């Protein structure tokens, strides 16, 4: 079992083997059970969780940048294109994380952590639900391709990007609120419909389509960067 561990050339496993040897360590048990497969242990270890944390921090920074850019471009309606722009720029982060980890659960945990930080920084609580459901789906898709298949990884990135739709959902709640406040002031329904002629479900679909396109471009860019820089350097 020891030999099996040290033969893995990946850096994460190197550090894991540097770990102080703890009796009854579940990770050791896990490698013990899966000695038949030459692959890495399936369970997430502390080293993996730390890797996820580092990448989640980078992803969160990307989301912040996306918020900034989106607010600059679209003015007050700010975050409508937030997920799309975030998807456009953070493909590299996602692809490198998947390449480094290659285990089930990594994408899910990253999504949950991102959702938690969005919630704590004052976003809508529904964003938490979106950032659990979509990453789990993305994780399953990526696993179907054994975290290697390029096409499936791209699809999984697209699905993961929809996890960020949580922060923009309140826009549609806000619309209801404004309608309610108009009704409270005695405006009739036809008038209210007129006000919302251009703020309707159309913008919703545009925003969703933008996520799809941007995630495809961003994921492709990420894979290209991965090939160009990290595969050559032996990191991914």
């Amino acid at each position: 079992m020891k030999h099996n561990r040290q033969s893995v050339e990946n850096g994460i496993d190197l550090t894991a083997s540097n770990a102080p040897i703890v009796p009854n360590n579940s990770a050791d048990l896990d490698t013990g059970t899966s000695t038949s497969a030459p692959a890495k242990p399936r369970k997430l270890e502390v080293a993996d969780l730390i890797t996820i944390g580092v990448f989640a921090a980078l992803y969160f920074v990307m989301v912040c940048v996306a918020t900034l850019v989106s607010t600059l471009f679209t003015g007050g309606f700010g975050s409508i294109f937030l997920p799309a722009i975030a998807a456009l720029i953070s493909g590299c982060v996602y692809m490198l994380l998947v390449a480094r980890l290659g285990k089930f659960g990594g994408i899910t945990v990253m999504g949950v952590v991102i959702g938690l930080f969005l919630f704590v920084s004052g976003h809508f609580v529904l964003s938490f639900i979106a950032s659990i459901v979509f990453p789990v789906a993305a994780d399953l898709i990526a696993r179907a391709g054994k975290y290697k298949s390029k096409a499936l990884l791209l699809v999984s990135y697209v699905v993961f990007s929809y996890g960020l739709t949580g922060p923009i959902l309140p826009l549609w709640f806000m619309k209801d609120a404004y309608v309610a406040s108009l009704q409270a002031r005695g405006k009739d329904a036809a008038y209210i419909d007129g006000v919302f002629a251009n703020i309707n479900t159309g913008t919703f679909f545009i925003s969703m389509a933008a996520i799809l396109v941007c995630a495809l471009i961003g994921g492709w860019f990420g894979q290209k960067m991965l090939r160009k820089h990290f595969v050559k350097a032996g990191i991914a």
Partner: protein
Amino acid sequence: MQSSFPAKSVTSDSRTSFQPPAAATAPGAPVFSDGAGGFSSDRTADTARLDRADRVSRTLDPRTKLFLLLAANLMLFFHVALATQIIMAILFLIPLAVAGRWRLTVNFAVLYAVFTALGLLDPEALGLPWLHVVSALAVGTTMMLPCFMTGAYAFTTTSASAFICSMRRMRVPEAVVIPCVVVIRFFPTIAEDYRQIRNAMALRGIASGGWGLVRHPAQSLEYILIPLLMNATTVAQDLSVAALTKGLGREGEHTSRTPIRMRAVDWLAMVAVMIPLGLDIAGVIR
């Protein structure tokens, strides 16, 4: 470790000082100084502990902060009446003021007042129909503001160790706690690395000047993100070694040096927030 050589060319100097003392520069920033899973050096931990000692008594328990966040979200969900919203906003601002974040408090109060006033504008009476855009946005922003208030409160007044300790108390699985620790720990490093990368780029005359980054967005993204990612992989390895030697991977309960306790004030804050919300949902406040 053979894999980490290429990263050295750009970012090796940023790794020599492992953790910039975030506590000394920004007292409000999340400070990582945890006895249970600590990565930080003794120097930063000492300053952090000193200024936490007088701060911890004046802020609420992290779990109460989460509860306030939930309450703010519930407000959004139930479309509370304007009166309730104003009462709640004031209630949310009180702990922020008590914690000594005066500028933040005043900023939020002014913003809230302005947007409430804008939301009450009647575009018809003024004869300017386009004002509906402004008015709708103002109503939306007023609804979001309580969330941002509580979020800002949670972010600026919680030390990382208190956050971690409370997550463990709430039985959050370790698979979520550990990445959260790392995220908080890693933010200052990202900022530091970014500065180093921009310096290196400026030295070579790449994307210098105010609009340099915007002119070639794909190139800027590549030149900034790739060194950051290269560095992230090495930092992840370093952190793993550091954390595992300090016993982060141990099973069983972890202790914390930051005391976390629900006090009377915490329960009072929860009840105080729930009263207007409950009354509104029950239909007493209209």
